[in-house]
């Protein structure tokens, strides 16, 4: 599915990634882990083409993504839930969903499907995204990404700042997507979520991949998380 091999990237003259490699497979959740500033969000942005890479390769099912324009990448069926949600704040819930549907030409069936995953959004369709609660905004960000009917879902700290009931709801949807065969690349800080969901864990530090573990190995030695993340 997703193969990232030795990518390098920079913000202007400041290098951010010095050699990140990872893979994410269909029907699995791959957790991308690291301390603040390690480069997790940068990896996500590089996959989406929002930050051009200066070396290495990114492929999805053998198709190179790093040669594509940023607006062509979501058409490869990659859904992106960025850190901080980044909703179109002044657009309504319905309009945010419509933007998601436009990317891959999805229609009413997909709209009904995402609204069935997050029924609360159906009650808020005419409401501006900026007026939603934090949890509802996260639901909308996830729903918008699922509108692409993605085969790869990128989730950047989806539970950040949410109350436990909302976290459980987002977690249920992520697990359901895994069961439906999506590849999920998840950036997460909460140890409990990592240990309960990860099929694979990739640790990065200072813009480099430093370790890769299977989920069961991680669950057998949870102190690995403490070692790498300092939590």
């Amino acid at each position: 599915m997703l193969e990232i091999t030795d990518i390098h990237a920079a913000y202007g003259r400041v290098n951010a990634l010095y050699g990140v490699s990872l893979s994410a497979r269909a029907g699995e959740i791959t957790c991308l882990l690291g301390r603040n500033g390690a480069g997790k969000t940068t990896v996500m942005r590089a996959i989406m083409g929002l930050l051009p890479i200066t070396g290495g390769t990114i492929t999805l099912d053998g198709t190179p993504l790093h040669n594509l324009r940023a607006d062509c990448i979501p058409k490869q069926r990659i859904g992106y839930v960025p850190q901080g949600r980044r909703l179109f704040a002044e657009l309504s819930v319905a309009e945010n969903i419509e933007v998601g549907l436009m990317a891959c030409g999805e229609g009413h069936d997909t709209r009904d499907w995402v609204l069935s995953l997050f029924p609360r959004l159906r009650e808020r369709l005419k409401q501006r995204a900026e007026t939603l609660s934090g949890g509802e905004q996260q639901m909308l960000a996830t729903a918008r990404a699922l509108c692409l009917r993605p085969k790869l879902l990128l989730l950047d700290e989806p539970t950040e700042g949410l109350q436990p009931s909302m976290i459980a709801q987002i977690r249920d949807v992520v697990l359901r997507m895994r069961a439906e065969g999506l590849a999920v690349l998840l950036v997460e800080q909460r140890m409990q979520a990592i240990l309960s969901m990860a099929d694979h864990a990739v640790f990065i530090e200072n813009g480099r991949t430093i370790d890769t573990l299977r989920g069961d190995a991680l669950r057998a030695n949870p102190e690995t998380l403490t070692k790498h993340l300092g939590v």
Partner: protein
Amino acid sequence: MDFGPHLMLAILEGAVTAAILALTAMGLSVVFGVMRVVNVAHGEFYMLGAVIAWFVATTLGAHPALGFVAALILAPLLVGGLAAVADMLILQRIGYDPERTIVATIGMLYIIQQGTLMTFGPDARPVAPPFNSRIPLPWLEWAEGKLSFYYPWGLSITSYKLFVIAAAALILIALWLFMTRTRAGLVMRATQQDSAMAQAFGIPVGRVYALVFGLGAALAAMGAVLVVPIQQAHYLMGHDPLLLSFIVVIIGGLGSLPGTVIAAVLIGVSDGVISVFFSPTLAKITATLAVAMVLVFRPQGLLGKKAH
């Protein structure tokens, strides 16, 4: 003429100015709102619209209404197309960097202005209005214990000026419907909110920017086609609309379309009233003073959002 009828006349003249200004400033506002580009060449797109209107009307040479309708269709299309090409060839290549776009649009200003001077010459060119009958306006007076209408001498407006007000209102309503009810409008608004996220959802931001830059210039050209039967087309006519458009956009709030309309009405009508009762120079001084006050007391403009 009494004060009341005189004031009504001034307000109507101001409404014509406001209508043209709303269209022109809306183009500037749309471009800034979506692209964050300060388009210093905007006045030249307005001038180009007027010159093309003259060229089309003169070339067709038939009934003025035919030439006018052809100009109203062709001038915005040609000017909008030119602006879209300029966006792709110049602004996209400099990455919409704020400082460089200002310098680049100053360059475009001079290229368009001097190109027009070289091809169309320095003369002011009149365009015949499609219709221009004089409509006397009634006024109310209290006489013999009841209100009655009468027609004061000199209180009149031309049918064409009323048409300008109505046409501008219709174009603005059409623009609002386009922005709020169509997929292209949704794409523009999404790009305006967050261009990086728009790309992450498959929106070709480069093409959207070219379309928006073209749309902004086309709106200026529409304003010019409407005004050219009242003012003559001339290669230097873009300066005042540019200045007034900036005044309107700053007062209304950068990127706020409703704010732009409200500010255009305020500036246009005050321009009309002050010009009639005092002098056009005082009207410009007042508008500039209004901008200064807005920048001091409400920098985000009437309906703009505070920068975080």
